[in-house]
């Protein structure tokens, strides 16, 4: 029996079945994105609060669009305008939001564990849209959807994650998710960004410091953004990173010919990834963005809609009514 999700706080505690269920639920919403009239009434009358305590453009727009296409209304709280700037506590801020009776709250926060903190104290479904250096579960789900679509299944691949893994919530969520499906995971980057302890996150995770070794036999490569704003360590010169770790066409040839290249965005072309790779046939970057909408619609449908709403259309009609 599938355990119904109350919140989506992270991937770590989800079962393989729960993950597959979400990916399956996203299927009709994927097709729906190709529809000329992109509006459902599924969540009409529902309100989704978007509480972005940390700046975000892509993820916020994706959630806002997902909510809109389901027919839900949104309330927006953004870091720059938030009362946090005036010294209000997180708890008071989210209680204020809750008092406006949203049916779900999507939270992004720079503190690891903030969504769990809120979920423990409020009676509203919480979706983690990225917390500190902890998790970014919807990113991992949309990555998994992308991989499954392109390669037919998740099981059995070799995944390589390149970059600042230590500070990456995207990497953590991907490691948790793909490891549950038996994916062998190789982490690679400057040694101080890929500490040995990362190997304890999940089964089948190893770290290597040489990119040639990391890319050998890879079926899927995730190039992480080099997150300069999150670094407290003594900084590494960009040229050093490029020299050793930039994903270039030459290096990509070390991977399997069928290898996919994913990037959570925003990309810094010429730093972690070469233009030719970013725009090449193996790149899935734009599919990831579209799949992000499908995943977020599926999640909002499931978490915010609850049992009371109509099921999503099994198949989207060819013509709009």
């Amino acid at each position, binding site marked *: 029996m599938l355990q119904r999700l109350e919140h989506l706080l992270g991937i770590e505690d989800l079962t393989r079945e729960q993950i597959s269920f979400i990916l399956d639920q996203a299927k009709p919403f994927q097709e729906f994105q190709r529809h000329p009239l992109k509006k459902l009434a599924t969540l009409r009358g529902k309100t989704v609060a978007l509480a972005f305590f940390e700046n975000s453009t892509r993820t916020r727009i994706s959630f806002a669009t997902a909510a809109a296409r389901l027919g839900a209304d949104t309330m927006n709280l953004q870091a720059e305008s938030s009362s946090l700037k005036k010294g209000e*506590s997180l708890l008071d801020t989210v209680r204020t939001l809750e008092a406006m009776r949203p049916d779900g709250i999507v939270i992004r926060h720079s503190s*690891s564990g903030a969504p769990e903190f809120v979920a423990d104290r409020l009676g509203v479904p919480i979706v983690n849209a990225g917390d500190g250096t902890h998790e970014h579960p919807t990113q991992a789900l949309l990555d998994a959807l992308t991989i499954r679509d392109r390669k037919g299944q998740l099981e059995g691949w070799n995944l390589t994650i390149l970059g600042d893994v230590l500070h990456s919530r995207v990497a953590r969520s991907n490691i948790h998710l793909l490891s549950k499906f038996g994916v062998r995971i190789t982490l690679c980057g400057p040694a101080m960004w890929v500490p040995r302890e990362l190997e*304890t996150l999940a089964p089948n995770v190893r770290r290597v410091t040489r990119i040639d070794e990391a890319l050998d036999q890879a079926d899927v490569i995730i190039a992480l953004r080099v997150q300069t704003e999150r670094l407290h360590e003594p900084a590494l010169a960009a040229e050093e990173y490029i020299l050793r770790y930039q994903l270039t066409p030459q290096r990509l040839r070390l991977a399997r010919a069928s290898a996919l290249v994913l990037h959570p965005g925003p990309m810094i072309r010429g730093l972690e990834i070469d233009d030719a790779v970013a725009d090449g046939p193996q790149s899935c970057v734009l599919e990831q963005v579209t799949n992000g909408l499908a995943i977020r619609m599926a999640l909002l449908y499931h978490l915010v809609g609850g049992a009371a709403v109509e099921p999503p259309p099994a198949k989207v009609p060819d013509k709009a009514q």
Partner: protein
Amino acid sequence: MPTTNDRLLLIKNGRVLDPATKTDATNDVLLEGARITRIGANLSAPDAEVFDATDMIVAPGFIDLHCHLREPGQEMSETIETGTRSAARGGFTAVCCMPNTQPVNDNASLTRSIVDRAAATGAVRVWPIGAASVGSKGEALAEIAAMKDAGIVAVSDDGKPVATARLMRQVMDYCNALDLPVIDHCEDPSLFAGGVMREGPRSIRLGLRGIPAESESICAGRDVELAILTRSRLHIAHTSTAGALEYVRHAKKLGMNVSCEVTPHHFTLCDEDVRYDTNYKMNPPLASRADRAALIVGLADGTVDAIATDHAPHHPASKDVEFDRAPFGIIGFETALALTLGELVHTGKISLPRLVELFTTGPARVLGIERKIAVGGAADITIFSPDLAWTYHASESPSKSRNTPFNGRTFRGAPVATIVAGQIVYRRELTATA
């Protein structure tokens, strides 16, 4: 603070455990006012109040070398009155309060005001610790001699380390001449670097910024080297790592006057217990499982001199925030004895006499004072049951704060009476089973 009078209190049939006099025998102890006047079997004193200590341990009064009473400046979190009432419930007859109040206790008038407040409102003895440097800023030496005259028992810039090796050397030299121990909170600020828990697999999993164990041991190594150089008294606060403990062991082998304390939370919990619950956030952070095991070895083999609580109250709103934004620290007076019994004594890792040593003669030695049950000695006594079953409810504490990871825990063993200068300042209500 109770005043001396001629009230008689006769403690009957307790197991008197006193490491100082190597006593472990069932005896009666008669207290007359602030002094112990008789010790022996079958004592009688017609006018005395009788305290039946059958099946209980009668120990010298417990000393806590490390606590934060928050007065002056943070009375929302604790006051001398509420903190010492909590200490009394924990069996402590004397507590040493760290100087990181607001303002910092770095001058004699502030020390005197703490001593005066304690005399007026304190339930147990309060022995202030003075700042090593002005404002604990790590620049100029504080008025240490004047503070000593006003009543400090040690110096420390607790909350942070004495900032530089050069300043530490000066503080040690200066305090050596004043016969004051220097207590250091060992931490390398550049390695600490905004961390919120111990670096390791758990910090990686939670995405919380890690503090490597070496942050503590590097600073402990510095301090031990300087203690050897200056031949002065050094006490390492809240030791949490095998590395720091090894430096203390090394110094002791050389015959140096170097000591250390361990908190109950560091020998009870480890980094694997950390959740997104700010009651698991303290500094030093909960250590690795291996480090915890090393601390327990040190507690058993004599390397560790004292168990200290690092009672660090923070009012609930300040702790009910995101993990990385919360202040460090937990309250600890009322769970210290029970955790020591449960984790160390009942598990066979240390003996009951060793426990008593860690709460009494151990800390006394660090301070350079005597602590014993002897005729003519101070009538500061802690009576506890090693077996009493109870459940800790932080909501019942006289402390103003509730920040503890041990709320709701069931324990075996508890303080039953805390006696300061012959007066019972805390007495546990026992369910009448006779």
